[in-house]
């Protein structure tokens, strides 16, 4: 209507915000309420699905961690920041344990692809984000032991995923156990059948044993 009206209406908004910052509760999300969270003292509630840098999970002893060094996550990591070397036992045969499992946190972009592609549920995304450090090369290059965290930690930060992973592992273990028994039973049945077959063969063989052995002894 007159020249200054838009300006006055806009200034009224900021004045209302100024007054409401005292009247409305801080962090209530209403218009005009303060939104500051005093970071070190107060913290926002952590979301379960929040993903920061990965960590390796082990069940009860740090030695038997779930990772079998199959190198799938290293190949699938977009910026290639995982470096795995298999452990070799005395005879030099590579074992299913990573001797070296380095993740370079300066390169990792916490995209969570390693967690998705890991067939053994061995690597998960952590919630720990206060890991700033002074030296880029050594301190932020996490080795296997720095990455290890217990299953309880995993349950603490991600309860639903933890339960789901555990149920899945439990089923897999039972399935494997059932399969083992089945295989064991099948093996016994086969062994028994074989034993029975030999027994009959042994009896037939006794009557016409001499001719068979000469044929076998002079192979072409």
């Amino acid at each position: 209507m007159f020249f200054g009206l838009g300006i006055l209406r806009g200034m009224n908004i900021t004045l209302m915000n100024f007054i409401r910052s005292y009247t409305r509760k801080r962090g209530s999300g209403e218009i005009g309420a303060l939104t500051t969270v005093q970071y070190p003292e107060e913290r926002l509630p952590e979301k379960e699905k929040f993903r920061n840098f990965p960590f390796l999970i082990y069940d009860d002893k740090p030695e038997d961690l779930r990772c079998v060094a199959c190198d799938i996550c290293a190949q699938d990591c977009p910026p290639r920041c995982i470096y795995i070397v298999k452990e070799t036992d005395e005879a030099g045969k590579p074992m299913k344990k990573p001797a070296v499992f380095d993740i370079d946190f300066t390169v990792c972009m916490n995209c969570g692809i390693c967690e998705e592609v890991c067939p053994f549920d061995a690597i998960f995304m952590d919630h720990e984000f206060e890991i700033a450090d002074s030296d880029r090369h050594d301190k932020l290059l996490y080795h296997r032991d720095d990455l290890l965290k217990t299953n309880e930690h995993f349950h603490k930060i991600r309860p639903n995923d933890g339960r789901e992973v555990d149920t899945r592992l439990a089923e897999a273990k039972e399935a494997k156990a059932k399969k083992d028994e089945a295989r064991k039973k099948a093996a016994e049945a086969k062994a028994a059948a074989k034993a029975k077959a030999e027994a009959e063969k042994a009896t037939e063989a006794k009557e016409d044993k001499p001719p068979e052995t000469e044929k076998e002894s002079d192979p072409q």
Partner: protein
Amino acid sequence: MDQMFVNIKAALVGLSDKVFPDWVGVLVSIAVSIVAIALLGPLIMMYLTLIERKVVARMQNRIGPNRVGKYGLLQPLADGVKMLIKEDIVPRNADKVLHLLAPILIVAPALLVFAVLPFGRNMTAVDLNVGILFFAAISSIGTIGIFMAAWGSNNKFSVLGGMRSVAQMISYEIPMVMSVVPVLLAVGSLSTNAIVEAQADWHWFVFTPWGFLGCVIFFLCGVAECNRSPFDLAEAESEIIAGFHTEYSGMKFALFYMAEFMSAFTISGMTTTLFLGGWQGPLLPSWLWFFLKTYGLIFIMLWFRATLPRLRVDQLMALAWKFLLPLSLVNIVATCIWHFLSDEAFFTPAAFLVPLALLVFSYWGLMKLNQPYMPEKRVYPLVD
């Protein structure tokens, strides 16, 4: 309570008279005033920075500094120490002399004006009978300081900033002085004390139509004079980085900062003196009234800063020459009408309505004349 500071000063002078010969007493009283102002200026500036950050923060739904000291009260000290520690960089082939002299030439006028401000009943440092003229003259010296800063930094952006701020200072000085003339007509003297006395028992000039308009014009020109939003062209961060004080760091930059805040205080102080009845006020001691009113006006300045975007250079000039100057001239005419219609009674209805009608008509007329700057109405079709 009201004359507290005056009694303190008298006691000090009395103390020195007992010890030294009488002429030293005069020196002591001068020294006390100087020390008071020299302490008051920077102190006001320090806590104005804190108040600004707190108020603007509250307008933006955040808390503002509250880490250093109880409610951030020590924040100004922290800033001061930081400014002292910061390395003072002088560009290589800049003009060393100008670079060094510029902040001094900007802070000095800002501090000098304190001498004329009537902080309370007979608490004016120097009771010049040309007080207002002193204020106008001193505030025009600041322009040269900005020139020196712009030219001394040998930086394209600061030259641009320097040009802009000088054009702005000159073109806003004239409406500022013109808007003071009605007060001088009503009071008949240039002395700040006389002006405040004339506004005794609620005869504040702001309640008269011409006084209100004069106050608005004076305040706007004052805001433009000390380069604060919405006229902060000289140090427009988004366009020319920091204008004339781009190349300053450390204590020199702190001086620029101090000059800006002190001139903000003096402008608000002068507006209170001229239009809001200075230290006149019912119950509280006089100096408290002065500070309350001044900080009220400073709150408005911070409110401007938190809300309004800045004007472009040509719009700024157009506002000064084509809007504020004619309005202040018409304001003088309105004062004369008010003066002769009101037969010595301050609030006569006729003397109130006729100038009011004249001013409203001229405001509307000027709006019509400045058509290209008026916002257009736009229609936005919503199509499929």
